């Protein structure tokens, strides 16, 4: 379980988080919905210790992230797969090298096992025979899939998705949404999805948290969100109806 309690964070003069509280239960997909640039992605980075909050507590499986030593933090990160907004593939490496990098560094697998593991991860994201391609030679949707394959290569317990469908056409975005659901079923991962796309949110999410002005103004199921009278929540629902 992941628990964020009273998180405060300021960048320069801008107060981004004003006492954020959030609980992510095991085996659920929680979707964080909010406007772009509001600080949602920063929350994901805080959970794996890439950014430190100014104050507040982040607990992962009962461990306080801020109090971990560097080695312990590294071990904690093995539990997470992170799909970055732009996929963040290492552009000097091939697709295959991107996926096998962590396997070579953190496991004792032999070459044949690593090759098999890379193929397995690629099959899960519906890609085949692309190991030799460079990231610059593949499409945006494929980059996201490769990013996903890289994230699941070490079979994480938690998946963090940062705007998984941003910048993709509707068909490709739907494909990514289906993959997120499939990975949940296949790997049994607990997922946090950050998005401003309410349509995608409703496809993948079990529970939803609306992030506005540095706080979660509402947390609930699809029906709770749809029936909310709160105008700040309604604006997201209405944007979905319009699309």
């Amino acid at each position: 379980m992941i628990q964020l309690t009273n998180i405060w964070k300021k960048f320069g003069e801008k107060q981004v988080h004003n006492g954020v509280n959030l609980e992510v239960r095991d085996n659920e997909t929680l979707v964080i919905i909010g406007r772009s640039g509001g600080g949602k992605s920063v929350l994901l980075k805080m959970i794996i210790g890439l950014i430190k909050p100014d104050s507040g507590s982040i607990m992962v499986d009962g461990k306080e992230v801020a109090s971990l030593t560097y080695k312990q933090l590294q071990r904690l990160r093995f539990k997470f797969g992170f799909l970055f907004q732009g996929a963040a593939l290492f552009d000097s490496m091939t697709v295959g090298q991107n996926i096998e990098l962590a396997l070579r560094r953190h496991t004792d697998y032999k070459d044949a096992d690593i090759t098999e593991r890379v193929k397995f991860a690629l099959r899960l994201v519906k890609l085949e025979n692309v190991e030799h391609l460079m990231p610059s030679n593949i499409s945006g949707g494929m980059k996201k899939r490769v990013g996903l394959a890289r994230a699941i290569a070490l079979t994480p317990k938690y998946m963090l998705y940062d705007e998984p469908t941003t910048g993709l056409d509707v068909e490709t975005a739907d494909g990514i949404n289906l993959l997120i659901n499939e990975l949940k079923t296949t790997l049994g991962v607990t997922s946090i999805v950050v998005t401003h796309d309410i349509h995608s949110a409703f496809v993948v999410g079990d529970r939803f948290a609306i992030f506005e002005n540095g706080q979660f103004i509402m947390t609930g199921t699809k029906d709770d969100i749809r029936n909310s009278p709160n105008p700040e929540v309604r604006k997201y629902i209405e944007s979905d109806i319009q699309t």
Partner: protein
Amino acid sequence: MTETTPESTLLSRTGELFFRPGKTILTFFEHLGRYMSTIGWMIYNFRNAKEYSGNIIQQMVMIGNNSIPIVLFVSMFVGMVTAVQSSYQLYAWIPRSVVGALVTKSVLLELTPLLTALVLAGKVGATITAELGTMRVTEQIDALEALAFDPISFLITPRVLAGVLMFPILVVFGDLVAILGGMFGASAIAGIPVEAFVDGMKSSFETWDAIFGIIKATVFGFIITSVSCYQGFQVQGGSEGVGKATMNTVVLACLSVVVMDFILASVLL
């Protein structure tokens, strides 16, 4: 609303006059602290370097092999111009062999290490900062950390180690070519016989001069690669941030090299 009077404007300008340099000094020490902390982390985790041997070799090729043509080209002309200018400045009654001595001393002690460093601050330094800066803004460095990698050991250590190892080798090649260039310039342009040049070279050559040049190259290699890596890691924003950091790298690396050149000469000579 606050009323703006000539007095308040003067007051705010006076305040700014003191505030701005103070802020600049604070920012300088903030960066110096972060730079030292990065270097400290790199040294502390140096034992992990063998795990990234592939990266080190790749960087040695990038920094060393790919820089050979430009270093040799610059060194050749530095040697030639030193020979021609030395010959021009000498009185007629001074033996011509002195040109060989002057070229050898100048090239080994100062010209090749310094000019190689300045050229490579532009070529290698800018490349490293642009590369790491792009990795920073496209979240590739965050991705490395998310995959439980130490980005300093993975990205900075191989580059700094490659710089420290390859700069001295480049300078040795540069020294040889500069002396050959000097010999060619002296004989072809200034009309000094090769034998006289070689006599001067032999009479003035001291092993310490060459070692001193190699020590300087090692230090310059460290400064240029570490400053450029640090700048790349600190990039904020998009492509504009990468461009600004790249420019800062070239300026900072060049300034640091000339200051360190003076310090090393004062201490070691």
